């Protein structure tokens, strides 16, 4: 049987990619958890991260792993700028305003990027050898992406649970007014969380390039936004940890489903996988809006 072997290696890839999805969605969930704002322009920030990795590699031969801190700092700065210029005024605005504003920010970033970089597909290849594991062959770069994603998620977890600022952010997610009563400067938490959320998202764009080496384009974002929604809902909107685990599951699901649906004649496995994902999204939203992994 060829199929199971194929499935095993695809699932393995899915797990690696899923960890990157997880990091890519943590920012979305964090921003929703703290500010109650759905960032509809999410994908544009992933695109910025991907281009950061691309330009650092092609211009200065900086390997993508070293671009991670650069992307993080870039994203943090961008997050603060966007927060103080726009988001700050919209914190208690109805969804209508925040959805439209974040979408417009996304378009603006895409269009500026297109103006500067053009709309062609670009890519780079960073080759450091391949690992052979029985039926599975996997480039070291992808393993490295997995290790980095897990490390980032781990560090973030420690930061959220062990530091004062991290605890304060969790308090605001839990109960805004309560946190305020406890003397937490909620305004500062908003700006810091938004910046961290954007920083994480831009950073994840760097990791994404290790999986789509030639798929870097200014309009690559919306696809990740939609995946981000499915993953965020799966993990429980507003829970970054849930998002990381859900991203992992989504990676497994995506590649597994793609392989299995590919065996049915007369269908487009790629599109149908997405369809199944959105059906899941609806079911979870209706039956358990706190997410598969979330509690209350």
């Amino acid at each position, binding site marked *: 049987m060829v199929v199971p072997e194929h499935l095993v290696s695809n699932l393995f890839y899915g797990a690696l990619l899923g960890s990157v999805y997880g990091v890519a969605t943590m920012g979305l969930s964090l921003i929703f958890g703290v500010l109650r704002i759905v960032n509809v322009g999410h994908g544009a920030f992933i695109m910025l991260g991907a281009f950061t990795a691309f330009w650092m590699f092609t211009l200065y031969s900086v390997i993508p792993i070293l671009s991670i801190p650069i992307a993080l700092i870039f994203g943090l700065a961008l997050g603060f700028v966007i927060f103080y210029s*726009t988001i700050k005024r919209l914190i208690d605005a109805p969804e*209508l305003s925040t*959805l*439209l504003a974040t979408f417009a920010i996304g378009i603006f970033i895409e269009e500026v990027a297109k103006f500067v970089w053009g709309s062609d597909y670009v890519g780079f290849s960073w080759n450091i050898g391949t690992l052979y594991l029985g039926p599975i062959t996997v480039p070291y770069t992808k393993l490295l992406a997995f290790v980095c994603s897990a490390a980032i998620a781990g560090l973030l977890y420690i930061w959220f649970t062990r530091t004062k600022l991290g605890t304060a952010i969790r308090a605001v997610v839990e109960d805004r007014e309560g946190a305020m009563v406890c003397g937490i400067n909620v305004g500062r938490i908003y700006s810091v969380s938004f910046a961290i959320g954007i920083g994480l998202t831009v950073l994840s764009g760097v990791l994404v390039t290790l999986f789509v080496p030639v798929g870097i384009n200014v309009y690559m974002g919306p696809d990740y936004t939609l995946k981000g929604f499915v993953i965020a809902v799966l993990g429980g909107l507003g829970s970054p940890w849930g998002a990381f685990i859900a991203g992992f599951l989504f990676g497994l699901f995506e590649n597994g489903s793609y392989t299995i649906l590919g065996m049915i004649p007369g*269908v487009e496995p790629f599109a*149908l996988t*997405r*369809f199944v994902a959105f059906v899941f999204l609806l079911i979870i939203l209706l039956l358990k809006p706190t997410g598969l992994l979330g509690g209350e």
Partner: protein
Amino acid sequence: MNLRAYKPLIPMMAVYAILIAIALSVEGMWQPVAYFMFYIALGQAFNIFLGLTGYVDFGYVAFLGLGAYGMGIAIQNFSHLGVIAIPIGIVLAVMMSVLLSLAVGAVALRLRGAYFAIATIGVNEGFRYLVEGVRLWGGTEGMILSGFMRKTFGREMTNFFSTFLADVLVIIVAFSAAVATIAILNRKMGYALLALREDEDAAKVMGINVTKYKIMAFITSAGFAGLIGATAWTLKLTYIFPEDVFNIHYTVEAIVIVMLGGAGTLLGPMIGGLIYGLMKYYLSVTFPGIQLLILAPILIAIVVAFPDGLMGYIKKKTRNSPLSEYLR
């Protein structure tokens, strides 16, 4: 029927008359005006749901998409009946989008705020990928009807459909949606929806059947969306591609129009649609390729500075003046 309550339709009719007069008298203006009318219709239809209930349906374009497919299916299957295929298509378009709205409304309208927005994005994208995934209605290759229509209706008739009839129908749809809006505003339903928009739980406690009115507004809005899809897309463009008719950009454009003009007002979508259409049309003529770059900051500025929209501002200024009877 209290005719005085319908006075705000007078300024609207005046604007429509001016637009139609320009379109018919000035050479080369018919197409731009048709373009503006599409946006006015889109805003007017979406306003019935978004403006009146305050729920953000981020997958609204799915109703336009289904309407477009309804018309496409009718043209493909009933062309042996001749021109009758068009009214059949219109009925089918409304039926399909209303059915979808019933299904979505029954389940998704339990959710609120951001959860509702995400669920509706899911419906729209899910539908698109279903069409592409199981190669429904041509799948990614879409429906290309121009050759087929020329063969069955004749070249002249097809041209007449796509360059004149479709536009006239869009104008009629826009106006009908406006009439529906004011009819709702003047009835108990309008007041119930106002209460719902302000505070859903309080409205429920007061004994208002919020679910019923929400779904009614949703279905009405979706039906008009189906009509727009059938006329402004299938009949006018003579092709349907899933990635076009389920494109989230149209939902966002509709939100922009409603917000720009003033959500929940009667004249707002017309003003918003006109301004948005004019901006987009002339920006793409004068700055081709970078129109979105200019439009995006304008949008952000509007959201931050004028959340009530132009009509909200005008209404505030004209309160207690004799003019206020005509503005709503």
